[in-house]
C-alpha cells in the first residue's frame, strides 16, 4: 500500500481538497506562501520551477508568476488575494495568465488553511469551482487532455495492427 503524503479528495460537487502536513511552524509555512523569495524556491513541480514572480500581498493585490518547463515552455499563473489572515489563512482567485498579467478563465477559488499542530503545520488547500457546470467544464478539459493521450495510443494500436497484417501477408 502506498501512503501518499499529499491527499486530494473531491468534496461535494464543486470542491477539491488537498491536504499535507509539514514539519515546520505555521508562521514559517505561511511566509513560504506569501513572500516572493520563498515562492521562487519551491512553487511548481521540480521540472517546472518558477523563474519569475511578483507578490503584492494585500486584499485585491496579485501574485503573478511564470513556471519554466524542461524544454523552455512557459506557464503563467496569477492569483488575486481575497483574504489574508496571517498566519492561519490565505484565500485567492487562481487564474491562468500570460506575460501581460491577464486573468484567463476558468478561475478557481483557493482557500488555504494553515493549522497549528504543535510546531508542525497541517495545510488544507480547498479549490472551489463557481458551479457544478464550472467543475464539469474543468473536468471535461481534463478529459480532452486524457483523450489526446488515448488517441496517441490508438495511433500505436493501428500501426501495430497494420504491421501485423503486413507481416501475415509476407
Amino acid at each position, binding site marked *: 500500500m502506498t501512503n501518499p503524503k499529499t491527499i486530494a479528495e473531491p468534496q461535494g460537487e464543486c470542491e477539491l481538497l*488537498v491536504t499535507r502536513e509539514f514539519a515546520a511552524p505555521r508562521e514559517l*509555512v505561511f511566509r513560504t506562501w506569501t513572500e516572493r523569495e520563498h515562492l521562487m524556491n*519551491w512553487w511548481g513541480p*521540480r521540472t517546472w520551477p518558477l523563474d519569475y514572480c511578483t507578490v503584492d500581498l494585500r486584499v485585491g493585490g496579485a501574485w503573478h508568476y511564470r513556471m519554466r518547463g524542461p524544454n523552455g515552455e512557459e506557464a503563467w499563473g496569477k492569483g488575486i488575494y481575497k483574504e489574508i489572515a496571517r498566519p492561519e489563512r490565505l484565500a485567492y482567485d487562481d487564474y491562468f495568465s500570460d506575460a501581460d498579467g491577464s486573468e484567463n478563465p476558468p478561475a478557481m477559488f483557493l482557500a488555504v488553511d494553515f493549522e497549528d499542530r504543535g510546531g508542525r503545520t497541517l495545510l488544507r488547500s480547498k479549490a472551489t469551482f463557481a458551479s457544478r457546470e464550472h467543475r464539469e467544464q474543468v473536468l471535461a478539459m481534463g478529459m480532452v487532455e486524457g483523450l489526446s493521450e488515448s488517441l496517441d495510443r*490508438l495511433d500505436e*494500436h493501428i500501426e501495430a495492427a497494420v504491421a501485423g497484417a503486413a507481416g501475415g501477408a509476407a
Partner: protein
Amino acid sequence: MTTDQLSLTFSALADPTRRAILARLAGGEASVKELAAPFKMTLPAVSKHLKVLERAKLISRGRDAQWRPCRLRAEPLREVDDWVERYRQFWDESFDRLDDYLMELQSKEKDHDEPKDYR
C-alpha cells in the same frame, strides 16, 4: 478493444456536448430530461447523443421503461480520476520541494543560533 470499438469511442468523445453529458454523469446517474436541462436542447436531440454514447459503451441505461437513468461506465472514462490524480501530483511535487526547503530554512536557523528573519 477492437480498432472499430476504439474509433466509436473516440468519435463519441469528440463532441463537446457529449463530453459535457459524460461530465454531468460523472456526478451520478440522471434521466434524459435532467441531462437536457443545461443544454437548451430538445429531448430527441439529447436522446440522439445518448444513443451514440451507448453504442460507444461509454454509458449504460436502466431497464425501467418509465425512468431509464443514464449511468457513466467506468471504463474507459478513468480520465476524471486521472485528472484528480494529476492535480494531486502537481501539488505533491510542489510540496515535496516545500518540505525540503522548510528543512533547509530551519537548519540554517539552528546553525546561526540566532533568530533569523527568513527574508
